[in-house]
């Protein structure tokens, strides 16, 4: 079956069963995400790739491993921006967005670690090695786990939102230091660091770029989509909670 065929089926799976029509003007990017990811998966596994020693067919992991980090960075950046917005405006809605963006970003980061670990197993011969870039990525996850523990240990909503926003700013800055600056200063096995060539050097015929750039966009959009769904769910839960408590107030009064 051809690519458009898949997309049409996917479209009806998601939007076809509901009575309401999808608002294309508002939700075109979701459709774009679906189309790009189908393109990525199909061409990523079947398309031509340059034959390289050691890398062999694992080079296709480029379409999955690298975009995960792009997705994580985007989502964590959204989280920080909404944290700052919350500090400025003191609106709980922004805190919910910051929280859900961080959740989704960390999930993508974990996927990035797993795909990277798999790739390391088949190219470097080990699941994990003590490398600046790898450790930096793992510690970034630790920092964000600490962020969730911080959120969990404050009961007052306003206070929790403020503390979390402050911590997430620190966390984001340290993440930049850890995965962008430190690996470039020291020896690293990871491509693009420590004097190693990045993938742009391997791909002389630019075959991979045709899949890689759409893959990055597709995965980032999927991450934003998941975040969007989570935020809507969290806002609904919040509304329900508020209704329930106000209903209880009325019951208490009478």
């Amino acid at each position, binding site marked *: 079956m051809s690519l458009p065929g898949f997309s049409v089926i996917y479209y009806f799976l998601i939007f076809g069963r509901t009575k309401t029509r999808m608002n294309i003007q508002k939700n075109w990017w979701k459709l774009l995400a679906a189309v790009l990811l189908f393109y990525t998966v199909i061409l990523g596994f079947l398309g031509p790739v340059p034959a390289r020693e050691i890398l062999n067919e694992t080079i296709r992991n480029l379409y999955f491993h690298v975009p995960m980090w792009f997705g994580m960075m985007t989502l964590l950046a959204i989280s920080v921006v909404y944290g700052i917005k919350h*500090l400025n405006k003191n609106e709980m809605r922004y805190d919910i967005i910051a929280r859900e963006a961080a959740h989704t970003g960390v999930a993508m980061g974990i996927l990035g670690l797993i795909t990277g670990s798999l790739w390391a197993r088949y190219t470097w011969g080990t699941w994990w090695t003590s490398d600046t870039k790898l450790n930096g990525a793992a510690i970034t996850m*630790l*920092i964000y786990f600490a962020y969730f523990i*911080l959120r969990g240990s404050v*009961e007052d909503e306003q206070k929790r939102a403020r503390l979390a*926003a402050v911590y997430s700013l*620190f966390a984001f800055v340290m993440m930049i*230091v850890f995965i962008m600056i*430190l690996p470039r200063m020291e020896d690293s096995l990871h491509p693009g660091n420590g004097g190693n060539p990045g993938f742009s050097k391997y791909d002389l015929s630019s075959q991979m770029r045709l899949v890689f750039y759409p893959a990055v966009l597709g995965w980032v959009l999927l991450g934003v989509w998941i975040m969007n769904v989570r935020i809507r769910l969290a806002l609904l839960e919040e509304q329900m909670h508020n209704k329930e408590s106000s209903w209880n107030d009325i019951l208490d009064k009478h």
Partner: protein
Amino acid sequence: MINEVQRLLYKEFLLESRQKQSINGIVLYLVSTIFVCKMCFRSLPQPAAWNALFWIILLFASVNAVSKSFMQDSKARFIYLYSLASPEAVIVAKIIYNTLLMLLLSLIGFGIYVVLLGGNPIQNIPLFVADALLGSMGFSAILTTMSAIASRTNNSFTLMAVLSFPLLLPLLMTIIKISKNAIDGLDTSISYKYLLIVLAINVITGVLSYLLFPYLWKD
């Protein structure tokens, strides 16, 4: 502002001189930790391990020393303090005070460490001093703010370690690298880029602490 910071610093020193047991406690913590290491390791011939252990001991001692900077005071005293001084002055004074405290700790710690675990002659002393100075500033900026965050939560002591250790790691790794270079007697120019990283982290965390602290103390 500067006047306020001066007065707050004076208050910190006055408090410390009146309650000597807290600073003595930290020094004792340092001595006992080093003694435990001495008993476990006996001797540490490799400079790399010697160097790393020294900074790890200092890391734990400093987390303990700084964590009390916002937890020890009572809530009522805090409210009184905040009605007198601006939050910016409070955080600047605390960071300066903690930097001095950390410098003192690293000095005392280094002395005891050399005596107990055997000296490893440091060949580039100016570099080591610069490293300790910059490191103390960075540790103090991060730990003071994390202590302010942790003091607002329910399980502040666990959270202090959980929040600050991963944030301190880039700083710690760079500091260890510089002090290894100092021990090996490498030329200072080799370590310039690492000193620059530490300086950059210090500036960033200092500015973040200064800007964000006002959001931390108002309840």
